[in-house]
């Protein structure tokens, strides 16, 4: 199923309005006017291709106020992609919703006639806009009651054609019906690629299934009192806030170039509101692209190689995974915590595994500092012992080694090289503190560790571990399982702060905003997002083993954001 872009029905938007059951899939096709309206709203580009220009009346004396242009002036900056706006903690900065229904909704409707999702920042106490008063608001900053709009709202110079395109776009932002949402059930998917680790897959699914079963076993029932009371104009959109969750597991098969079609097929058969968690191998790009195209939120998949595209919207990641590790190792190589300066680097990875992307990132980062980097790719199919040994034979005196290897390759490293200098390794790929390093290696190891240190996170991780234990969920891949549990909790809490406003873009926007308030953040010291931020945890440690034996880690480099 191809979903339509929110802006796609602008030309016929007036016709769409009023059909509250219009789902994305049934919307009229795109049109030139729709594209113009969307370009103004999202990118600050007028039909002529010229930049949108806005002026705030403040700062007079400067030759006419503060001018804002192009992307900086785009409506989306404040009113957000959903068109639902936002309100600050202290409520002093309130950016009202501009999705058409909120602007044009008649006053004094009976409560039962309202089917608008509730948002806190709605202005319910003013005249409904008309096209003419809305144009006046946008051009002159005067609202429908004739009062001036807030300081933040610029006055925009738009000609009549651009203005009607923009207004049509606002009307097209219908926020009343999303796929995957019924009166009683919220549908979610989780996506697993065929190259995902089977042990992690089992561990993740155990957590997801149990979390949802628990949630559904103890539902917050709709409150009959509120349903019948009709108190407040949004009561209709509030009473059913606690729906059952239903999880659809989308397991992909075959080569990566067939995944997109498989995903389309899944989505057509099982429309979902969002993708929750998920598990990838070395290639998540097709899934990322699919979610972006289908405008489907994908919340915190377990992915080692995420797609770095901060201007994309729909996929949120916990971290940059091995790409973050490459940044940490590069920093550590440039500024070693001990020993002489590093002059050359040999890195080893398996073809086709996550280390390949990481090795490219490391070569690029280290290359900039003038240190020579050589990369050895081990054939994907070769035996652990043999392939690694051959690669390590290429090491020269003074090389810093970087190992992008899995536990089976690490276990087969053999004896530590006699003249080994510092050996960097990927914690994510190698198994973190459980990495099965053979004797002699441990004292050389500097491990990229894109998480909080074990001692520091113990309280935050204790809670999910207790939850697993109480429910007899075997801990087979602790970090993935704790991250999965965290993703579930973040979704549940964000929805609990979103009333009944099931709008995909709003879900992402609320997550961006609320994430920073979370204090049980599992493996991560803190999480935060914002518009144009898609990686919630930004930094990591480089650690070493405290003792010749055992798993105790200490930081070799303070928390670093590369």
């Amino acid at each position, binding site marked *: 199923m191809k979903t339509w872009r929110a802006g796609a029905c602008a030309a016929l938007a007036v016709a769409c309005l009023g059909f509250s059951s219009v789902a994305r899939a049934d919307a009229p096709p795109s049109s030139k006017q729709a594209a113009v309206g969307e370009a103004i709203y999202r990118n600050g580009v007028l039909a002529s291709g010229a930049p949108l220009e806005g002026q705030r009346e403040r700062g007079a*004396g400067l030759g006419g106020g503060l001018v*804002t242009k192009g992307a900086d002036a785009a409506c989306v900056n404040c009113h957000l992609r959903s068109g639902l706006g936002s*309100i600050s*903690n202290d409520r002093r900065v309130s950016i009202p919703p501009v999705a058409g229904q909120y602007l044009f909704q008649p006053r004094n409707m009976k409560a039962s006639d309202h089917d608008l999702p509730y948002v806190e920042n709605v202005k319910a106490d003013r005249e409904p806009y008309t096209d003419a008063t809305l144009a006046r608001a946008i051009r002159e900053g005067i609202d429908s009651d004739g009062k001036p709009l807030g300081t933040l709202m610029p006055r925009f110079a738009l000609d009549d054609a651009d203005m009607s395109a923009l207004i049509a776009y606002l009307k097209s932002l219908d926020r009343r019906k999303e796929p995957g949402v019924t009166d009683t059930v919220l549908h979610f998917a989780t996506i697993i690629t065929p190259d995902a680790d089977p042990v992690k897959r089992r561990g993740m699914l155990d957590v997801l299934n149990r979390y949802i079963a628990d949630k559904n076993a103890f539902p917050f029932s709709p409150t009959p009192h509120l349903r019948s009371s009709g108190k407040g*104009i949004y009561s209709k959109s509030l009473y059913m806030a606690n729906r059952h969750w239903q999880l659809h597991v989308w397991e992909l098969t075959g080569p990566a170039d067939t995944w997109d079609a498989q995903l389309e097929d899944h989505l057509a058969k099982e429309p979902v509101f969002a993708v929750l968690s998920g598990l990838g191998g070395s290639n998540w790009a097709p899934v990322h692209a699919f979610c972006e195209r289908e405008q489907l939120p994908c919340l915190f998949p377990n992915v080692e190689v995420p797609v770095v595209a901060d201007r994309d919207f729909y996929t949120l990641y916990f971290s940059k995974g091995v790409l973050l590790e490459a940044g940490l190792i590069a920093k550590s190589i440039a500024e070693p915590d001990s020993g002489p300066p590093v002059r050359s680097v040999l890195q080893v990875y398996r073809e086709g595994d996550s280390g390949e992307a990481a090795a490219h990132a490391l070569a690029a980062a280290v290359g900039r500092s003038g240190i020579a980097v050589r990369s050895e790719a081990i054939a994907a199919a070769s035996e652990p012992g043999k392939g690694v040994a051959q690669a390590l034979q290429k090491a020269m005196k003074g090389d810093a080694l970087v190992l992008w290897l899995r536990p089976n390759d690490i276990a087969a490293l053999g004896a530590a090289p006699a003249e080994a200098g510092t050996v960097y390794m990927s914690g994510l790929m190698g198994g973190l503190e459980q990495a099965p390093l053979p004797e002699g290696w441990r004292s050389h190891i500097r491990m990229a560790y894109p998480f909080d240190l074990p001692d520091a996170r113990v309280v935050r991780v204790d809670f999910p571990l207790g939850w697993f234990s109480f429910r007899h969920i075997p801990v087979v891949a602790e970090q993935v399982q704790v991250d999965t549990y965290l993703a579930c909790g973040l979704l549940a809490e964000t929805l609990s702060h979103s009333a009944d406003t099931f709008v995909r873009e709003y879900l992402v926007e609320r997550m961006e905003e609320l994430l920073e308030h979370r*204090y049980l953040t599992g493996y991560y010291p803190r999480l935060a997002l*914002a518009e144009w931020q898609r990686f919630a945890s930004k*930094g990591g440690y480089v650690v070493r083993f405290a003792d010749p034996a055992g798993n105790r880690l200490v930081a070799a480099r303070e928390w670093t954001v590369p």
Partner: protein
Amino acid sequence: MPAVAQFFRGGRSLAALGATLGMALSPMTPARAVDSGGAYAQHHVQLPDAAGRSIAAYALPRVQLVRADGKRVLLADELNDGRAVVLDFVYTTCTSVCPLSSQTFAALQDKLGIERDRVHLVSISIDPEQDTPDRLQEYARHFDAGPQWQFYTGTAEASLRVQQAFRAYSGDKMSHPPLTLLRVAPGKPWVRFDGFATVDQLLHELQNQVAVQ
């Protein structure tokens, strides 16, 4: 079921609804918004046209920051170099409040003309992990920041301490209110502007007190 400890710290909804953490567990949370709040009027406190001005004294914490040029500096050293200071808090991915504050700073430095060398414009990141020195430099270029306007980042803890010292911490970066702080010289009190200070307001304050011509 999840313990109370699981829930978000504060959060705008919680704050807005006057809810306790425990109440956040309740399915009634959204309902309270409606039942208690027939008062939509309160949702739209208009920011005053000119920012509210007040005088305040702050103890500068001993905090190390990282300037956009990568240099580690002490906050106090940066603020106490003898120049007047105009300070705000920003983050580079902010799309609503900060761009207007930064535009105001940009216009202020233009309007100060040659006197700008006697003023130090200070923008401190409230999203320091995202706002690396490189990103701050890019942001500075976007607003044509001259050498008298400098940007600072640092650890999350350092940024938090500075925000707290200036009573500027609002719980999360995305809902930080517009705030500008001005001090004409070390040892003088701070002038605090809550809301969007205008270029003229800041200029007037500087001119009155340091006779910037």
